[in-house]
């Protein structure tokens, strides 16, 4: 057999497997049951408008808060990790290793319960607020490593040029290094933002009041109350409605920034 014939035969087999698997799934599935349980328009209609005006809105709000908080704390940690002061480096390294090593769910749970007890203080937003602090704490650990890598990727000549012009270390960092670092890390930061959108679903462990529920919690509750899985599908679609435009926007932003590289 000629190599080209063998290759074509192999591809044919792959296509055949694909078609067979699809057919088996299609024949074995109970389409009526699927339609009534997952794609039930009446049930879907019953979740509106709350699933958008409460659940999706809360998902977005929690994501924005956690991302901004994570960026600020992550930046501080990254600068600590690059600091010439040894204890700062230890602290940052310890923090990052600790919170990257723990399940986010556990940290959120811990913060939601521990903060009000430990500080005799209820953060704004009550238990969601405390849970959000947990989410910020976790995302900051990942974002810190990303920012540190970005800072280190800025060529040394950039710092030398700025310092040789008499710009002090702080302004060099703020006006020369960080703007370039953030351009470099736009793709991994987008990745972290998308992960964060989905991780807001872990906030349920903090205990959410009715108006505080985000998409996943809302969909789970609806699943129980309506005895139908359609809300899960609606929630899934809404997650995509949030993430897809976002990744598109960042891709566009990145193309725009190419000029200044």
């Amino acid at each position: 057999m000629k190599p080209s014939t063998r290759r074509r035969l192999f591809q044919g087999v792959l296509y055949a497997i694909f078609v067979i698997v699809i057919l088996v799934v299609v024949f074995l599935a109970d389409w009526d049951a699927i339609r009534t349980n997952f794609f039930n328009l009446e049930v879907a209609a019953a979740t509106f408008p709350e699933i958008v005006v409460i659940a999706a809105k809360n998902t977005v709000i929690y994501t924005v808060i956690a991302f901004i908080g994570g960026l600020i704390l992550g930046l501080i940690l990254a600068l600590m990790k690059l600091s010439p002061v040894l204890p700062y480096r230890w602290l940052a390294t310890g923090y990052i290793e600790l919170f990257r090593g723990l399940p986010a769910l556990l940290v959120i749970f811990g913060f939601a319960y521990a903060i009000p007890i430990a500080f005799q203080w209820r953060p704004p937003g009550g238990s969601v607020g405390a849970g959000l602090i947990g989410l910020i704490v976790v995302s900051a650990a990942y974002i810190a490593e990303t920012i540190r890598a970005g800072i280190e990727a800025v060529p040394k000549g950039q710092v030398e040029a700025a310092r040789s012009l008499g710009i002090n270390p702080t302004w060099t960092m703020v006006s020369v290094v960080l703007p370039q670092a953030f351009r470099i890390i736009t793709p991994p930061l987008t990745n972290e933002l998308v992960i964060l959108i989905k991780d807001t679903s872990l906030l349920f462990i903090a205990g959410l009041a009715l108006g505080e529920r985000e998409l996943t919690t809302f969909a789970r509750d609806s699943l129980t109350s309506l005895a139908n899985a359609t809300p899960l599908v609606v929630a899934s679609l809404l997650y995509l409605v949030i993430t897809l435009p976002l990744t598109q926007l960042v891709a566009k932003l990145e193309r725009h920034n190419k000029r200044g590289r």
Partner: protein
Amino acid sequence: MTSVSKGSSAVSTTEPAIEVRALCKSFGSNDVLKGIDFHVDQGEVVCVIGPSGSGKSTLLRCVNRLEEPTTGSVMVEGVDITDPETDLDKMRTRIGMVFQQFNLFPHLTVLGNLTLAQQRAKKRGKAEAIEVARRNLAKVGLAEKENAFPSQLSGGQQQRVAIARALSMDPDMMLFDEPTSALDPELVGDVLEVMKQLAREGMTMMVVTHEMGFAREVGDRVVFMDGGVVVEQGKPEDVLGNPQHERTRSFLSKVL
């Protein structure tokens, strides 16, 4: 080519722009500078030549303390640059530096590159910074490029922007580290022309270069370094035309 006349009476009273004494610099066990005595007078153009790895860049970078000297002293306009009490950032605004790789800020426009340090280090207002920037851009022949990003410019244009950026701080002296070595041959001329113009205006310049033509034409003095020491120095026609040391002769025979 005439360099600015240095009145003989003035020379004795003004201190050198740069005065390096017994400078040693080691990277770990690698002794790169082994006791350098070196000076640049005000208004003087000194070209530093020598083989690769002889320590030319290291010497230049010690002058504005981008490299920390191991021992020895570096005085700039009478101020000890190695003294921890010295306001290094302030001194650096008086010492312009031009790098082989340009090192323009890629995220800023040409105008942004020229105004950043004026605003951050010299605390100039925006309007004044822009005015100074435009004047220096015109000087290097790139007035129409103020809104371009560095990536949109040729290497020669980028290096001229880098020179304009340094000049915008109104420095008393300029350090050049092989400013034309990263350029395509046809772009070298424009950059050298700008440097000649600067020399003509009386700028104090320390130029590490492989451009022997430039050293001969523009340099008031040529310093030949090899193996971390100054082997020979003097008038360009003497050092380049009639070298006294064997090492100088063998180096020149390779580059000329």
